[in-house]
C-alpha cells in the first residue's frame, strides 16, 4: 500500500487540463514549388475549450477542443499562361494545315494571391490518453549539491504528471466556399498587376481571354474536383500540416507541460531561522484515473 495518496476530482482535473491547454502554441511556416505553381503558408494557433471524460479503464478522452488560428496565411503563386492574340493562319497549306501563321503577342506572367484563412474552423475531435509520471532531474541543478541546497537554490528534482496521448485526431474544415475565396484572391491579384495606364476595354478584354477564374486556376494547377479539396490535400498531406499539429499537441502534453508536479524530496516544513527545511523523499510515484477522479500514489523512500 502506498504511503501517499492524493486525489483530484474530475472537475479539478478539468481545471488542471485547461491550465496546461492554455500554454500550447504552435507556429510553423513552409513553402514548396510544385511545377505549375508554388505555395507557402504561415500558421500560428492555440487551443481553447473542449470536454474531458475520465474512464474507469485508466484512460481519459478529450474532445471538441477548438484549434484557434491566430494566423493562417496561405500564398499561392501561379505562372499565368495568359493568352496570345494572333497565332491565326495566314497561309494555309493544301492539307488543312498552316504554312504561315501570324506571330501574335502574348500576355501572361507570374501572379501570387494571398489568402487569410484564419477563419477556418479546426478541432481536436478526439484525443485519447493516459497519465504518465516522469522523474525529472533539473538540468540547471549544480553538480554535487545536496537536495536541501537544490531546494534552496530552486533547482529541485521533480516528479511530473503528464497527460500522455495515445491518439490525437485533428480536423481542419475546408468549406466549399474556398473555391470562391481563392478565385477572388487570384482575380484581385491579377487586377492589382494591371498597370494604371491600362484602359478599361483592355482589362475587359484580358478578363474575357482569361475566362472564369475557377476554371483558369483548375486548368493551371490541374485540379480535379473542388479547390477546397485540393487545398485541403495540399495543406494536410503535401505540407503535412495536420500531422504536424497532431504531433505537436501530443508532444506538448506528453513531455512539455505537466498537469501537476511534486518536488523530490518534497518539503514538509520550510526553513526557519537556522533550521533547514524538512523534506521527505518521494519514490515510485504513479498517476491513474477512474471515472470520478485522478489518483496519485507514491511511497516515501529512503
Amino acid at each position, binding site marked *: 500500500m502506498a504511503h501517499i495518496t492524493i486525489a483530484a476530482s474530475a472537475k479539478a482535473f478539468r481545471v488542471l487540463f485547461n491550465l496546461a491547454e492554455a500554454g500550447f502554441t504552435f507556429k510553423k511556416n513552409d513553402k514548396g514549388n510544385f511545377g505549375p505553381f508554388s505555395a507557402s503558408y504561415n500558421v500560428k494557433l492555440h487551443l481553447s475549450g473542449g470536454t474531458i471524460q475520465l474512464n474507469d479503464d485508466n484512460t481519459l478522452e478529450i474532445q471538441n477542443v477548438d484549434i484557434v488560428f491566430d494566423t493562417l496565411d496561405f500564398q499561392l*503563386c501561379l505562372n499565368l499562361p495568359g493568352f496570345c492574340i494572333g497565332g*491565326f493562319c495566314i497561309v494555309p497549306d493544301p492539307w488543312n494545315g498552316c504554312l*504561315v501563321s501570324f506571330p501574335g503577342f502574348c500576355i501572361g506572367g507570374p501572379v501570387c494571391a494571398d489568402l487569410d484563412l484564419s477563419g477556418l474552423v479546426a478541432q481536436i475531435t478526439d484525443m485519447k490518453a493516459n497519465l504518465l509520471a516522469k522523474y525529472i532531474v533539473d538540468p540547471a541543478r549544480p553538480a554535487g549539491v545536496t537536495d536541501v541546497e537544490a531546494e534552496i537554490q530552486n533547482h529541485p528534482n521533480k516528479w511530473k504528471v503528464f497527460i500522455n496521448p495515445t491518439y490525437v485526431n485533428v480536423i481542419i474544415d475546408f468549406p466549399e466556399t474556398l473555391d470562391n475565396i481563392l478565385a477572388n484572391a487570384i482575380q484581385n491579384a491579377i487586377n492589382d498587376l494591371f498597370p494604371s495606364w491600362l484602359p478599361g*476595354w483592355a482589362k475587359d*478584354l484580358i478578363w*474575357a481571354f482569361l475566362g472564369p477564374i475557377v476554371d483558369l486556376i483548375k486548368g493551371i494547377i490541374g485540379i480535379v474536383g473542388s479547390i477546397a479539396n485540393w487545398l485541403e490535400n495540399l495543406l494536410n498531406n503535401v505540407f503535412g500540416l495536420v500531422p504536424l499539429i497532431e504531433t505537436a499537441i501530443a508532444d506538448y502534453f506528453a513531455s512539455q507541460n505537466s498537469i501537476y508536479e511534486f518536488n523530490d524530496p518534497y518539503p514538509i516544513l520550510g526553513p526557519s531561522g537556522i533550521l533547514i527545511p524538512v523534506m521527505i523523499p518521494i519514490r515510485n510515484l504513479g498517476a491513474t484515473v477512474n471515472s470520478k477522479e485522478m489518483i496519485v500514489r507514491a511511497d516515501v523512500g529512503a
Partner: protein
Amino acid sequence: MKLTFDQNLFTQTGLDSGALNMLGALTHSLSEPGHYRGSVYRGSENIAAFYIVADKNSPVAQANIDLSTLDPAIIGAPSRGFDQGAGCCGDSDSSTMTQFTVNPKGYVVFHVSAGAGGYAVMVRRAEEDPNTRVFDSRELSEGDVFSAAIIRPGTYSVENVLTNAKGQVIVAYPRRGETAYRPPAPVVFHCSANEIEPERADLQPGQGIIFHFKVRSRIKIELLSADDGPGTPLGPTTRGWKKATLSRTNG
C-alpha cells in the same frame, strides 16, 4: 512580379502596312534562291539592315523577322545609318548583320514584338542594283499578305491608300462568357483596283484580318470611333475578401 504588358499594344489603335507596329505582320515569299539584303526604315530613316539567304535546301518554311529586335533604339545599339547602297556578303557590315535563312518557296514574315513600331521594310537582291527592289512594305503587291489583329473595340476605316479603295471594320466590345474567349477565324480581304472586298466586316476583338492583293497596295486602318463598352468593368468589383462564416462539418 508583373504580368507581361507592352503599353504599345493597348495604346496604338491604327495600323499601316507601310509603318508596321505590334498589331500587324507582313508576309512575302522570295520565290528565287539567293542572297537578299533587307533595310528597315522608321519614316525616312534607315535604322537597320539584315540579310536573308533563300536556300532551296533549307527546311525553313517561315522565317519570322522581328523588326523591333533590329531597331537600335530598342536593343540599345548605336544607330549606324545603314546605307541602302552598302554591299553584301563580304562587305564590312555583313559580319555584324543579322542573317535569316528560309526556303525560297517559304515565307518571310515581318512583324514587331515590342515598342512603338512604325517600321517599313525594303528587300533587294544583295548582289544586284541596290535600287532593284523585290519587296517594299510601302507598296505591297500580288503574293504579299498583310495581316493584323485589332484589339481595341470600335469602328475603323480601312483604306488602300494607293488605290483609294475604302472599307470598314467594326470590332465588338469583349464579353466575358462561361468559357475563356478565343477569337474566331480570321476574315480575309481582297484588294483590287477599285475595291476592298468585303467592304465591311464585323470582328471580335483580336480576330485576325488578312489582306491579299491584286494591285499595288498600302493598307491603312484608322479608328473612327471607339467603343468603350457598357461602362461597367467585367473584372472584380469587390476588393479583398471578408472572412466567411464557415460551417463546421463532422468528419
